[in-house]
């Protein structure tokens, strides 16, 4: 068989220029996030630790400091954070961007929860079949568009509520590597520690700065006697923080419905948004 010239041997233009199209997509993300000071992924490596709850509580608390806060719900399959922040659609489509929904304290939110019918899972219009082949790429595409096509505007911090699996962090790191940091959420149990350790290792191996660990459901806050009792055995938060040489940022007790919201410690808030000094002019 004759040997043909290769792609690189043929000097004519590549009209499709798929690589360049992908490059423009990435440039669009960078440009869109130009005025976002920091992107913080809330990771866990497992479900059920209260990652979305911590994300929403953190967003509310930082926004109460008069900071501009955005929340991107990257848990595309099980979106909950929009509801926790009271954000509802529809999303307004402008010429070159889609405006985020506004939640509590004007937190700017985007989530697949705002796109899906109640009770319906994330599904695709395609009739191509073999969904398992392309679903991962499709979800990465939605994440990219949520970053690059939402009119986030100037933000002090964009919090990303990550899905339980560790893989999505790699997609995120590819798109916003220079601004990205991560906070890990765990519950006290040994089982949780094992999963969260994997997520933290993935973050560290991917060059993502780890700001610290939050231990959620760290005891049970009694609504009547003002004490905190045991809930889960273990001290996963402290162990993970020591293992990765990062601070244990908070131990948040489980609070029964109607008993209020636990205050988040300043060290947790400060690590995603430094408090404004008295000498700085107020934000407009």
């Amino acid at each position: 068989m004759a040997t043909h010239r290769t792609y690189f041997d043929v000097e004519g233009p590549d009209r499709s220029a798929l690589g360049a199209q992908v490059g423009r997509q990435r440039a669009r993300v960078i440009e869109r996030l130009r005025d976002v000071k920091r992107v913080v992924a809330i990771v866990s490596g497992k479900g059920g630790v209260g990652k979305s709850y911590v994300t929403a509580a953190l967003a509310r608390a930082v926004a109460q400091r008069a900071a501009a806060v955005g929340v991107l719900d990257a848990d595309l399959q099980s979106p909950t954070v929009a509801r926790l922040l009271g954000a509802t659609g529809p999303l307004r489509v402008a010429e070159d961007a889609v405006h985020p929904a506004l939640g509590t304290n004007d937190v700017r939110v985007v989530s697949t929860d705002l796109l899906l019918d109640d009770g319906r899972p994330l599904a695709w219009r395609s009739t191509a079949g073999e969904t398992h082949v392309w679903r991962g790429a499709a979800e990465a595409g939605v994440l990219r568009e949520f970053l690059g096509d939402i009119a986030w505007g100037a933000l002090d911090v964009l919090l990303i509520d990550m899905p339980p699996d560790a893989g999505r962090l790699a997609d995120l790191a590819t798109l916003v590597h220079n601004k990205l940091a991560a906070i890990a959420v765990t519950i006290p149990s040994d089982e949780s520690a094992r999963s969260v350790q994997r997520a933290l290792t993935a973050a560290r191996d991917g060059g993502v700065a780890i700001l610290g660990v939050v231990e959620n459901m760290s005891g049970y806050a009694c609504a009547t006697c003002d004490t905190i009792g045991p809930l889960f055995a273990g001290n996963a938060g402290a162990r993970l923080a020591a293992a990765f040489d990062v601070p244990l940022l908070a131990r948040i007790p489980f609070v029964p419905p109607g008993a209020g919201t636990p205050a988040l410690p300043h060290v947790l808030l400060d690590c995603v948004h430094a408090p404004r000094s008295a000498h700085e002019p107020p934000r407009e």
Partner: protein
Amino acid sequence: MKFLCIDCDTQMTFEERQQPGDGTFAASFGCPRCGRRVAMLANPMETQLVSTLGVEIGGRTLDEQPLEFTRGAVAGRDDAFIEDAPRAPRPVWSSDAEERLGRVPSFVRGMVKKIYSDYARDRAIAEITPAIMDRAREELGLEGM
């Protein structure tokens, strides 16, 4: 990707693409030397794979729209989005106006061009001419631009 006419050892040129609505995709190419034409036919899964990347074979003819892939691919609620009222199309620049814009220092030229473009667009002006630039300068107080 590039298509090569082996007999002529010449790169074929893209002619057109078709998406008939059954999930398949076709792109045709022709050899500028011998005139031979070929069509690349993709099955639905191959077509889906490419569209999932948010790219278009043959290059983009229109700018990517916000959330273009998400809105097209996610089977969601019909009322998830509301559209802002459409703006007038982007104005074209007359050669005289282009020449005048070229005299603006390069480090601010992009910003100045946007100011004039937005001015024209907000007023549904189809073409920016030196007269329009003068009017914008006067109305917007853009002395020196």
